[in-house]
């Protein structure tokens, strides 16, 4: 293999030596134009939100790049009437609770799916996979009526139950993928050394797939944090999440104030950007559940 690679390298360098011509200059020029357009495409909305969050009400209606920045907006969104503080807390609570419940369940199910074959196991696995294609609006219709009956409207518990429907299938499949790639011999060796079944799980298997578990947890949290429809319908008063509060900025006294929208947007966006940076290597594989790695 290394030989083959070397020979390719040689041919490539030959081609390069031959072709220091206008073609390469055009190619390099095109490449950099492409890079600039791509950077603009990815970053302009994020950059503009960040910039606008530092502007005053009047400045937000201009395209100025240079202005006296202010952090006032970040104070205003935490004050009355927008009060993002409790909403931030609700979002954190819902996200963390959902992940804390979903991940252990997903770990157990993923282990069973990965290590055992039994009648119907494939069918069951596919069923778990397809549950995440059920549109949220289908899930919320019945639960809205059920929650009204049992008093779970406008509660954290209600939101956690609904978010489990999103997080659990993802997490199970993701963790299963990581256990699949762990050779069973590792577990068998421990068995020979006299460890018992549970000991193997907690001291060998799960620690070894911990990166995958963390990725699943982070993804689960991001999904809960960004979730809007459930929160809009179930948590519209006391348990407003950040997303619902964000939507509510549009109904402020002066209509939609862009500088406040942007400041709230930063609050919504920045933690998630940091989290996704932490798991960047697993981002694509995680989202497509191992279809593409």
């Amino acid at each position, binding site marked *: 293999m290394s030989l083959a690679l070397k020979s390719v390298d040689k041919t490539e360098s030959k081609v390069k030596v031959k072709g220091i011509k206008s073609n390469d200059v055009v190619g390099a020029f095109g490449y950099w134009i492409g890079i600039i357009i791509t950077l603009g495409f990815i970053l302009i909305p994020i950059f503009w939100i960040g910039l606008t969050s530092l502007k005053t009400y009047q400045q937000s209606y201009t395209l100025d790049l240079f202005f006296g920045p202010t952090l006032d907006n970040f104070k205003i969104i935490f004050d009355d009437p927008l009060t993002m503080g409790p909403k931030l807390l609700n979002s954190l609570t819902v996200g963390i609770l959902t992940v804390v419940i979903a991940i252990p369940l997903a770990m157990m199910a993923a282990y069973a799916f990965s290590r055992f074959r039994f009648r119907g196991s494939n069918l069951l696995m596919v069923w778990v996979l397809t549950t995440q294609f059920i549109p949220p609006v289908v899930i919320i219709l019945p639960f809205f009526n059920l929650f009204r009956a049992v008093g779970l409207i406008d509660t954290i518990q209600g939101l956690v139950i609904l978010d489990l429907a999103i997080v659990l299938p993802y997490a199970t499949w993701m963790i299963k993928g990581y256990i699949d790639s762990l050779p069973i011999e590792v577990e068998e060796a421990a068995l020979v050394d006299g460890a018992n079944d549970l000991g193997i799980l907690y001291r060998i298997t799960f620690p070894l797939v911990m990166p995958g578990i963390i990725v699943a947890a982070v993804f689960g949290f991001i999904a809960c944090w960004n979730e809007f429809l459930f929160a809009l319908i179930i948590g519209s008063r006391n348990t407003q999440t950040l997303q619902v509060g964000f939507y509510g900025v*549009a109904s402020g006294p002066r209509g939609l104030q862009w500088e406040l929208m942007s400041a709230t947007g930063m609050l919504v966006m920045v933690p998630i950007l940091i989290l996704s940076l932490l798991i960047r290597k697993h981002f694509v594989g995680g989202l497509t559940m191992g279809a593409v790695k």
Partner: protein
Amino acid sequence: MRGKYAKFIMLSPAILVLLATTTYPLLYALVISLRNWQLTKSQEPTDWVGLDNYTQAFTDSGFTNSLQVTFLFTILSVSLSLGIGLAIALLVQKKSLVNTIIKTLLIFPFAVSPTLKGFSWKFMLNSEYGLYDHLVKTVFPPARDIIWLNDTFWAMFSLAMSETWGWAPLIALMFVGALGTISPEITEAARLDGANNVSLFFYVTLPLLRPVILIALLLKTIFSLKMFDQVVTMTGGGPGRSTQTFNYFIYQVGFRNLDMGYASALAIMLVIFLSILAYLYVKLLLGKQV
């Protein structure tokens, strides 16, 4: 694990939660879809109406409109996401510092919440002070009379673009991964046979990318059909009802008109359609694993 029942003990909590949170609502919606239930008139479902809720849809112009809107949105956002995604992937596929930085930045747009995507694009497309509006009209002056979100076509296009902003980078990353697995020997051999860049792309790269293109296509289509949040924060379904996607329509019927029976019937129709796509996706996914 040697215990005979261990696997079932390990599986049952997750299975039970999923039954309760996904299968139960589906069955519930199926039952309600056969009944009359106007929440404004009654707290409980009333009489059984057979398939009336389903047949009602086909005489409802809101329904046919939302199908057209969803179809157009799906076509636009899928083709834009895959096209731009492929272009970015081809641009940054080689290993270099700049490309690594770009590849890291590519994960950002997808992580941004859909509500924010909607608001930020609405802001940037405003025809008085929007950044994108200004940029586009500077580069292309004939567009200066367009008020993006007041025009039926451009509102739809903008909605699709805001969705593409999140998805194209993600799809680019999927493609970059697949491009990395194409052996340099293959492209080298093709070059020796006299292939130029264009024929190399169409006869070597594209066929080799086919599996990942299919997966991206299905995944993006499924998510396009589920799209909801940006409609709320960006266009509100307007102008008129030109961006009322199917999901948004179900939401309107269920939670604005409070017609639970009809909304359930619509939801079941969406599920049937999505199941077909999900079936194809699963077949692709598992076919690859075996």
